[in-house]
């Protein structure tokens, strides 16, 4: 009988749960990067294709979550944080998954194999980037609990600690990037120029991955600054 009770219609769905689900998907997507990379190193393109498939699937699911979240945030919605900050955050998160898709796409499409000398540094570099994403996810998980308690003094302390760690990881990724570029510069002469060009691009993109993860962190910081 009561189809649209105005009282219960007042209670919107919390946007933080979908936000969290989204970053979990994103971080799962990024996790695929490491096994994918290992597969390319040994030239197992079938395995790489399988990993690539799960990347696109996860990216797609994340995309859907993003759309759903946006649709459930009409501008009559009153939130404890700024609505635009929230929408910014989801689009930054979404770009992480997109970048993972781009990296795996080009590497698979061009059957790119990183030269042996670069394999270990590149592996470490990717690991750092993936850890960055995982840290962003961790920060968001913590934040959700705190949001549900309505902020408080605790929020800034915990956030500071999480963001500092994120920043440290991003710094580490930057350093690794510089080292790999220098190493690649020494190898350039022996490699086909187009491959080198694309390898630089991949290095760049992996860097962007950690960059964006850090940006999730700074968005969170802006959101909780009150």
């Amino acid at each position, binding site marked *: 009988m009561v189809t649209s009770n*105005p009282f219960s219609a007042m*209670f919107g769905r919390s946007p933080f749960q979908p936000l969290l689900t989204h970053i979990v998907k994103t971080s799962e997507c990024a996790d695929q990067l490491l096994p994918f990379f290992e597969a390319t190193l040994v030239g197992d393109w079938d395995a790489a294709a399988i990993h690539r498939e799960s990347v696109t699937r996860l990216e797609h699911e994340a995309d859907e979550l993003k759309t759903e979240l946006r649709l459930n945030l009409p501008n009559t919605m*009153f939130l404890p944080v700024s609505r635009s900050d929230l929408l910014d955050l989801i689009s930054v998160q979404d770009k992480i998954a997109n970048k993972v898709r781009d990296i795996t796409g080009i590497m698979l499409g061009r059957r790119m194999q990183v030269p042996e000398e670069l394999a270990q540094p590149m592996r470490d570099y990717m690991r750092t980037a993936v850890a960055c994403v995982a840290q962003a996810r961790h920060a968001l998980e913590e934040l959700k609990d705190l949001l549900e308690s309505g902020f408080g003094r605790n929020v800034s302390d915990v956030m500071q600690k999480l963001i500092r760690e994120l920043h440290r990881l991003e710094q580490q990724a930057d350093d690794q990037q510089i080292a790999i570029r220098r190493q690649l510069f020494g190898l350039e002469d022996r490699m086909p120029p187009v491959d080198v060009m694309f390898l630089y691009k991949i290095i760049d993109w992996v860097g962007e991955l950690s960059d964006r993860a850090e940006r999730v962190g700074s968005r969170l910081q802006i959101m909780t600054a009150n």
Partner: protein
Amino acid sequence: MSIIAQHGEIFIILACLFGFFMAWGVGANDVANAMGTSVGSRAITIKQAIIIAVIFEFLGAWLAGGEVTNTIRKGIIDPEMLQEDPQLLVYGMLAALLAAATWLLIASMKGWPVSTTHSIVGAIVGFSVAGLGASAVDWGAVGQIAASWIVSPLLAGTIAFTLFKSVQHLIFEANDPFAAAKRYVPMYVFLVGFAVTMVTLTKGLKHVGLDLSFGASLLLSILAGLLVSALGGFMERRVQASSRKTDQFGFSGVERVFGVLMIFTACAMAFAHGSNDVANAVGPLAAVISVVQTGGEIEAAALVPWWVLVLGGGGIVVGLVTYGRKVIATVGTGITELTPSRGFAATLAAAVTVVLASGTGLPISTTHTLVGAVLGVGLARGMAALNLRVIGTIAMSWLITLPAGAGLAILFFFTFKGMFG
């Protein structure tokens, strides 16, 4: 005069029927919102909510429903105007009851926002303007009631904001929120017991033969507050801290302590709702009865007969048991994002506001007051997401309900007039 002597019993029977029907409607529909916050925060189950509602709606109606009933009965229309034709008041009140009940039925079938209070006040004002002339209405009193419809959500919002801020400050920001919750929650329970008893004692109990001085009321209220707070402290002792590792702040344990508190606020809310909304059903009934019993003389000083309030309370309970339980389940499961700490702040604020209004004799909308209270918690950054469109719906319910109630009442008024002469 002769009409009343001739048809007196029919009038009373009709009024009882319509009043009971109206009370049934209140129990079936309105109670769901009053209990929704408690059920939605999962502090109490639907079954517990119904038991609490049955007991405290009835107690509220019986013990504290008198003031608002008086307002509806004789506060809106100036009884002096009707010395000549007392039967017009009888027709009008019957028409108002029937109009409000009909409108309530139509609106809830269509899912429109509706307020019982607004429809009955609209209906009474409507029939008196059309049937008796605009000068029959005490516009000062109507203005006061209309103002209270704006003030009550604002007041509830302010109280809820303050309550939730205090909870944040005292409990959530403490180093050990769980221990802080255990320490402070009994104080909030005291507040619940004290506020409800105080308003009831100072304003309500004359008709059950209890007339206390202010000092005695204060003392009794403090006693009642201490009593429930001790009970709360005892119940709270069974709540264990969270064992989940992921919950590093212990918030889920805190929420469970608030769950204990919610039981008390749910009782207070049901009591408050009963005390205010019973008048919508029995106010007109009481008016009819006093006209008939005094043989047409409209006596302004008479008290509301106690059995009228019992009839209203009974109607609410029947509505609750036959139909309201389903609506409670629907509303309760619709509200998923409310935790006990927020639910408590909103419910207590609304309950205090409504009880205050009941004591002052102002008929207000419990639902609108609750909406104001929840928004207050939202302003304190306590709610994950609130759809502000609800404010528009409230405005709509004003715009639709008042004229609809008035129009229907006018229609029924002239029907009765034609039937009985």
